[in-house]
């Protein structure tokens, strides 16, 4: 029997736990409670938080608004896993813009002019200074952590003209979007110039190789849609090669196992997964596997009429790829209603069920940690 667990061993074990298990360890004894407050532990846990499977943050706004739940994805004992409800601070009705290295970015979904950075596992949050003229322009956001400088950066791209896709006032005037950057810990936004793209916002973050990624809307009728990136280091935008000659219209970006990847939907119910094996090398895009038709349990019926008014109800996308788990399975979300783990090696689907999971949710892959927000 152990009578004495050395401090450094306890610290090392705790630093390897997923964040919800770590929080729970506060209750073990006084020494461990103090240990969880130890800045060394917070730092060590932060640096290791990528080693575990990520957790999912589920955002629900129906029937009650502003609800967040967390779900730990440690593989192996799904049967016993539960969804935990997070105590959300009093905030206006929000949308989740994205998650990066432990922090969520939230945006006021009514006035659209307020942004918050929030750690759901410490409860800490800050309201960012208002960017210029945010409310009357459509804006696209990105939020990412830069390990080299330990900075969190927020980029906002304000699109002047939104092409409808069918009629353009002129094809001669180049499109122009204003780029503003906010570094967490600074006092104000910086306007860093304009770019000739209209990126498309999608929930979640596609951050890989120190760059955030978006698809763009076509700049002119019949002009190609592009993939663009924003480098958190030099703050430059670059065009990223697309897989083959596919139209990005059908494509959604995702990070899988450390590679920029694309789910290319053949139709509502099937998609191909392309992976860019060497970053920025067009020829390295490889079709890795195809995900066939699957109807998760309970989804045979369509949703209740009342839910169709919710902002999460999106008929067009039947499923999305969320992440690659440590066991090699892909985590899929079907219509914001069901989580499924797909095993690409033997092409099988497993419906995941969790105690307490809400009926409708928007999932965000989140690397949970206890980082404090410094302003």
């Amino acid at each position: 029997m152990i009578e004495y667990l050395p401090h450094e061993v306890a610290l090392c074990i705790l630093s390897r736990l997923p964040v919800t298990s770590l929080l729970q360890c506060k209750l073990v004894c006084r020494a461990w409670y103090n240990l969880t407050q130890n800045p060394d532990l917070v730092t060590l846990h932060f640096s290791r938080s990528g080693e575990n499977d990520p957790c999912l943050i589920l955002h629900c706004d129906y029937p009650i608004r502003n609800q967040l739940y967390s779900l730990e994805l440690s593989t192996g004992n799904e049967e016993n896993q539960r969804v935990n409800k997070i105590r959300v601070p009093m905030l206006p009705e929000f949308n989740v813009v994205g998650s990066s290295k432990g922090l969520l970015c939230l945006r006021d979904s009514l006035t659209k002019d307020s942004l918050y950075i929030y750690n759901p596992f410490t409860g800490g949050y800050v309201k960012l200074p208002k960017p210029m003229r945010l409310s009357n322009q459509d804006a696209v956001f990105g939020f990412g952590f830069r390990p080299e400088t330990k900075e969190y950066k927020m980029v906002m791209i304000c699109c002047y003209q939104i092409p409808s896709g069918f009629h353009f006032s002129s094809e001669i005037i180049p499109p122009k979007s204003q780029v503003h950057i906010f570094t967490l810990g600074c006092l104000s936004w910086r306007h860093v110039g304009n770019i000739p793209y209209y990126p498309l916002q999608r929930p979640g973050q596609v951050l890989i190789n120190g760059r955030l990624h978006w698809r763009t809307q076509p700049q002119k009728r019949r002009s190609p849609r592009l993939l663009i990136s924003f480098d958190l280091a030099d703050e430059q935008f670059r065009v990223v090669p697309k897989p083959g000659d596919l139209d990005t219209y059908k494509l959604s970006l995702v990070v899988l196992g450390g590679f920029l990847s694309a789910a290319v939907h053949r139709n509502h119910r099937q998609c191909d997964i392309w992976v860019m094996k060497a970053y920025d090398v067009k020829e390295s895009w490889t079709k890795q596997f195809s995900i066939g038709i699957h109807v998760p349990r309970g989804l045979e019926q369509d949703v209740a009429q009342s839910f169709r008014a919710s902002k999460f109800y999106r008929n067009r996308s039947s499923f999305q790829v969320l992440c690659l788990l440590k066991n090699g399975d892909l985590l899929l979300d079907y219509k914001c209603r069901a989580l499924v783990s797909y095993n690409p090696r033997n092409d099988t689907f497993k419906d995941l069920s969790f105690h307490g999971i809400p009926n409708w949710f928007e999932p965000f892959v989140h690397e949970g940690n206890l980082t404090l927000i410094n302003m």
Partner: protein
Amino acid sequence: MSKLGQAKRIIFLKTADGQLFEVDEPVAMEFEIVKSFFDENEDAADDTVVPLPNVSAEPLAGIIEFCKAHVEFRANGAAGKDEVKKFNAEYIKEKSNEQLKELILAANYLNIKEMLDFLTETIANRLKNKSVEYVRAFFGIENDFTPQEEEAVRKEYEWAFEGVDED
């Protein structure tokens, strides 16, 4: 026999329960505590017995097995490959929680970084999503909170305490 024709150097280790172990030098040098013993006593005789008063025979045998395999993996350039993962998985499979704890205490005392990393990761995997009571029992830790304190901490993180494994 090594290439130079010299006999392989053997290091003698003596455990708390009086057992004598003969270990190949490269394996023994994985133990930081043994390495610094010889660094500090450069003229120690070849048959010097290094006392390990905090380690008993059973965990030491397990540690030697682990380090021997890992020294060989490194020599063969297999470090980080599937072979190593397979060995580690097999190594840990039959170990009880009690054995794991003895191993980690011994590895901590002997100061073997690679093995400590591996063991803390293994233990963390066994503690994931387990109840507070399970964690206490695992380490033999007594709950020293007063009921009032425990209630306060529980309230602080109430949401995190729903739905953990009973065992």
